[in-house]
Every structure is written in C-alpha cells, then in structure tokens.
C-alpha cells in the first residue's frame, strides 16, 4: 500500500523516484574519482584574466591598433622623409621660396625644374607645405611627437605626485589625511584653465633667464611651464582617487593580518595595498594622457604652447587658422589627429577599466 503511493508520485515533481534505483546504482567512488573532486579550476592570474577580457573588446583593440600605427609612424617617418620640420625646403642647396602653400603631392616650380633637369624623383610633399615653405607632413609628425610626449610625461608626473601624496594621506589617515585633503580641496576648487593660463604667462617671464644656458632651452619656456602647471594642478584628482582606494583597501583584514605579522608600513603599502589598486591607477593614468594632450593643444592654440620652430598639434592648428579659408586641410589634419589620439586613449582606458576593474570573485 505504501509502496503504491510512493510510485504514483506527481509527474512534475522533482523528487527522485527511488523505486527505479537499487543498490547497484550507488557504488562507492573510487580513489581516482574522489581525487577529481579535489581538483580546482584552471589557475588564472589577475593579469591573464584581464588581458583575455581586453582582447574580447573590439573598441579597445581598435584603439590599440590606431595608437600603435600613430606611434610607429612618428617614430619611423622622420627617417625616410628628407625634409626638416624647421627649415625651408631647399632645392640643390638653394632655398625654394616658391614652395610656399603647396597642395598635397604638389611640387614647386623650382623642384619641377630640378627633377626635369636631373631626372631624379624628389620625395613628395604628402600634405603639401605651409606658408613658410616647410613640408607640412613632417611638421605634423613632429607636432604629434611633441603632443604625445607632453601627454605621456604629464601623465607620469601626475601619477608620481598623486600616488605619493594619495598613499600617504590614505594610509596614515586621521589628522594627516584631514590636512592633506584640505590642501587638495583648495587646489581643486581653483578654476584650472584660468590658473594654467596665468601660470604659463608668469613662468614664461621668470623661466627664460633660468634656462637660457641649459639643455632645457630646446624645449622652450612654454613647454616647461606647461609641465610645471600639470605638476602643480593636475595631480589632485589622482591623489584623491588613490586615497579613496587605499582607504577602502586598508580596511580589509589582510592588511590587519600583515600588521599582526609585524610587516612594516612601507611593505604593507607595496605588497598589500598598491597591488590591489593597481588597476585603478593604470586606468586613470591612461585617461590622464588624453586630458594632458587636450590641455596642451588648448594652450598652444592660445599661443602659450611650445615655442617656434618646434610645434605641436595645437600650435599647428593655431597657425592654420590664418589661412583657414584657402587651406582648410592644414587645420583639419592636426585636429583629426588630436581627435584620434584622444578618442583612442579614452576608449582604451574604458576598455582597461572594464577588463581589470571588475571585482575578483
């Protein structure tokens, strides 16, 4: 009677119908099978895992390719383009005044005459020339070099200052943190563009006599003042971010465990805290590059950027303003390159964040 009931269970029930099984279905697991239960998943490190996720992100991968192409071009191009960014084109050792304002792939009269007489083919002016008869392509290449290095150097400066300041404030906390963060608040509340412009003007005046006899002269006062401005102003958001990260990480019990072991403060920061906010640091630094490039372009456009004859993408665009109607290409090219670099770096930064910042689980 009871067995009858057992068999007639509801057909949707998830209960196992025991009547269908007997002892032979339940044999003891062998040692081998038991060991299989003990096997863990494939060991993946944080880095491998993140790279795998990054590779699956088409936008980030496209950005990497674009950036690599740009970097490769600015490294390689100057070695096969026979023109200089700072000098007027010369044919046969003579300055070619007629080469001003050429269109893309055009040759000046003097060059055409030279080629006809010798039969030698001259290297084309890929983007034409500017109003001072300089090859525009090589100027764009050098401008990109300058802009990119300003971006990278500024980002590194911001990273170093922000990292040291933020780690100290976050790790020691309490009164130290309070005072350090009030300073950050004050700097943060200044209108940065205004300050940058004011500081650039002031530094330009003051720095000139100081650097006149040193190698720094090559960079020009504008460039150096720009770095100083970045160093003085832009680290604050980085410092805030790192402090916040450290504050949250130092509450983890593993930091307490390290203290309990007797680990010194420096080692705790290096081994336990910083590695755990590394992803955020890398991402923010990556995002700092385009912001610095943008500021540099902006300043150059206002005439506060690198000094002539050195150029940057921003000052190229600024110079092109005068002939905008007749030679729009000279404005479009640097503008497009700025956009490409900034966009690619932003997308890459976002991609890095998605790949690395997800919490481990």
């Amino acid at each position, binding site marked *: 009677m009871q067995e009858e009931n057992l068999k007639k269970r509801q057909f949707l029930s998830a209960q196992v119908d025991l009547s269908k099984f007997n002892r032979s279905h339940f044999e003891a697991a062998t040692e081998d099978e038991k060991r299989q239960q003990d096997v863990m998943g494939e060991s993946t490190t944080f880095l491998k895992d993140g790279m795998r996720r990054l590779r699956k992100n088409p936008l980030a991968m496209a950005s990497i390719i674009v950036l690599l192409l740009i970097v490769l071009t600015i490294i390689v191009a100057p070695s096969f383009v026979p023109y200089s960014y700072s000098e007027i084109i010369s044919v046969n050792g003579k300055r070619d005044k007629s080469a001003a304002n050429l269109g893309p792939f055009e040759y000046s009269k003097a060059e055409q005459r030279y080629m006809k007489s010798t039969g030698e083919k001259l290297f084309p002016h890929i983007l034409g020339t500017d109003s001072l008869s300089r090859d525009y392509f090589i100027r764009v290449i050098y401008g990109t070099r300058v802009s990119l290095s300003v971006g990278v150097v500024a980002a590194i400066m911001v990273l170093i200052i922000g990292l040291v300041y933020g780690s100290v404030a976050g790790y020691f906390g309490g009164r130290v943190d309070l005072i350090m963060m009030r300073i950050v608040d004050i700097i943060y509340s200044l209108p940065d563009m205004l300050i940058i412009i004011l500081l650039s003007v002031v530094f330009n005046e003051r720095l000139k006599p100081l650097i006149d006899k040193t190698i720094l002269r090559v960079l020009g006062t504008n460039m150096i003042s720009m770095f100083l401005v970045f160093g003085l102003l832009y680290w604050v958001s980085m410092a805030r971010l790192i402090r916040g990260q450290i504050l949250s990480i130092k509450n983890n019990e*593993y930091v307490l465990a390290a203290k309990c072991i*007797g680990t010194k403060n420096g080692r705790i920061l290096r081994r*336990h805290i910083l590695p755990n906010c590394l992803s955020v640091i890398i991402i923010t630094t990556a995002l700092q590059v385009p912001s610095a490039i943008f500021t540099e372009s902006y300043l150059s456009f206002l005439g506060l950027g690198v000094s002539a004859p050195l150029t940057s993408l921003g000052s190229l665009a600024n110079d092109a303003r005068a002939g905008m109607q007749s030679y729009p290409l000279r404005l479009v090219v640097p503008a497009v390159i700025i956009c490409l670099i900034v966009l690619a770096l932003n997308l890459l930064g976002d991609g890095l964040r998605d790949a690395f910042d997800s919490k481990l*689980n």
Partner: protein
Amino acid sequence: MENKNLLEVSHLKQYFPVRQGFHRIPLKAVDDVSFTIKPGETLGLVGESGCGKTTVGRTLLRLYQPTGGRIVFDGEVLFDSGEQYDDNGKLITDGEGRPVMGTRIDVDMLPYRKQMQMVFQDPYSSLNPRMTVEDIIGEPLDVHKLYSSKKERREKILSLMETVGLNAEHAMRYAHEFSGGQRQRIGIARALAVNPKFIVCDEPVSALDVSIQAQVVNMFEELQEKLGVAYLFIAHDLLVVHHISDRIAVMYLGKVVEIADADELNANPMHPYTLSLLSAVPIPDPETARKSNRIVLEGDVPSPLRMPSGCPFRTRCRYATEQCAMEMPPLSDRGNGHFTACWNK
C-alpha cells in the same frame, strides 16, 4: 610553573572616538576587561555580535592602540597605560577624581609578533587576493627572516601547508581560488609560520559551512596538542566554545560578566546573561526542549554609545533591582575559579 600565566590582561579599555554631529564621543567597545591565559590553555570568549570580542583580540595584540589597561605576556609588560587600581579593582584617583598615573609602558611589538598571532574572522577578506598561497604563508617568514635560503623557505611553507591539511601542490595558487575552509587553513598556516605561543582565534569557523566547522575546530585542537599553543578562542556559539575551551569568559557590551571553567559554567551558570545564552543553545530533542523552561531575552542590545548606568545588562535583566542601576557589579569570586559580575545572583 603551573601557576605562571602566559598572558595577563587587566583593565583593558578600547574606546573608539565616534563623531555625532559636532561632538566626538567615545564608543566603549571594550571597557575594563581582565583575564589570564596559561600556556597551552584555551580561553573561550563568547557574546553577542557587537559586544567587543574582536576588539579585545585585536587590542591585546596591539593592532589597535589600547585606551587603557595593562597587557603582560610571558612575564614582560607590553603595554601599561599607567592607571593604578586598588585591590578591589577600583581606579585610584586623586582628590579631584583624576586617576593617579604611574609610569606608562609601550614597547615595540615587533619581537612579540613572533609569539602572538591571530586567525581572522572572515576567510575572504583576510587573504590578499593578489598573492599566492606561498607568499601569504611566507610573509611572516620574510618579515622575521626565519630562513637562510630560498630552499629552506619553500620547505617550511610546504610543511606548514601539510600541517593544516592543504595540498602542497596548490602553493602557487591565488587565495581567491580556494574555498572558505581552505582559506581559513591558509590563514592558520600563516599564523603558525612564526611558531607562536599564543593565537587569538577570532570566530575562525563562524563564516564556514556547518559541515566544515567541525573539521576546522578539530584541527585547532590537534594543533594545540602538537604545538602546545594557547588560544583565545572567540565565538558566539556556546557549543563550539564549550567543546574546545578549558575556561570560558562571557562578554556583554564590552565587559566580561562571567568567567569560569567550561564545565563549571555549563553546569552552574550564574549570570543572568549566561543563563539566557545557555538556554538559547538549540536542543536537538524536541521533547527535552519543551520541558526545559527557556529564558528568552527581551529587547535589543543597547547601543554601546548609550550604555546604561550601572550593570550593562540591566535593561534586559529579569532580576534587575535599584542597585543595578546605581553601580557596576564587580567580577567577584564565587569559588571554584568561577567569577561573576552580578549583584543578585
């Protein structure tokens, strides 16, 4: 020899400053806690969540700077705030109510970190997710330079892993790849690496699956037999504590209200709070459960920011009288090594 204490904690206080509006008021997480632990002994520490058990453990290991009290380990004073107490445990004050201060002692803890260790409550946040097991267990060895060659370091780590029942093949794995029980074993191996005489075990099993709890508790017992290490074993589960402890201290709102041998406490609980804790232990047999008259606690634990005057338990105590509101009952000797802080029991 028999009477020598490994650890003596007296009048330990830990107040956290808490901001309330514009004021900073002290949160008395641990208030005047005293106990002793003998070599190789286990003292259980029980109490509800938030009563300050973790804080006692961390403060006596000097992970937090104590607000007051005295900590003596192996005959050496690690900390003494300088406050002095008379024989009845009353603070000695001068005419204006200020404590009479003796000399303050505050030693560098580094050499003592090799002798006192801790196993943490949360097996997930107590291991750095970016480090391999080898590096986690190896860190105390690195810090105290307990090896002479890379090979010796590795051998030590592998033998520690074996001691706590971990598969040595997993040494290069990252902590986040392990289960809760395995992680807790890693934490225990890290604590054992320096060969300590005393370990604070802060609810080492409460985050684990019930099926694994017993394994880990048994491992603690085996380790104690093998290594002769003393434990302060914190838990909120009286069953677990009774199983592993030689003596048990019961805490309520930052104060120790009762302390006795484990069996004595179980057979003869005195403090009303201990009585209610014991009757909250689930009884497996429903028949016995019905017959026993359970004491169900009413009301909530008061906030440690607004401690009741006198006895901290008086807001929930059935036996409370006027005297309880006036003065904190001292922890008084009831014979048999049984101490209770209650006026009426």
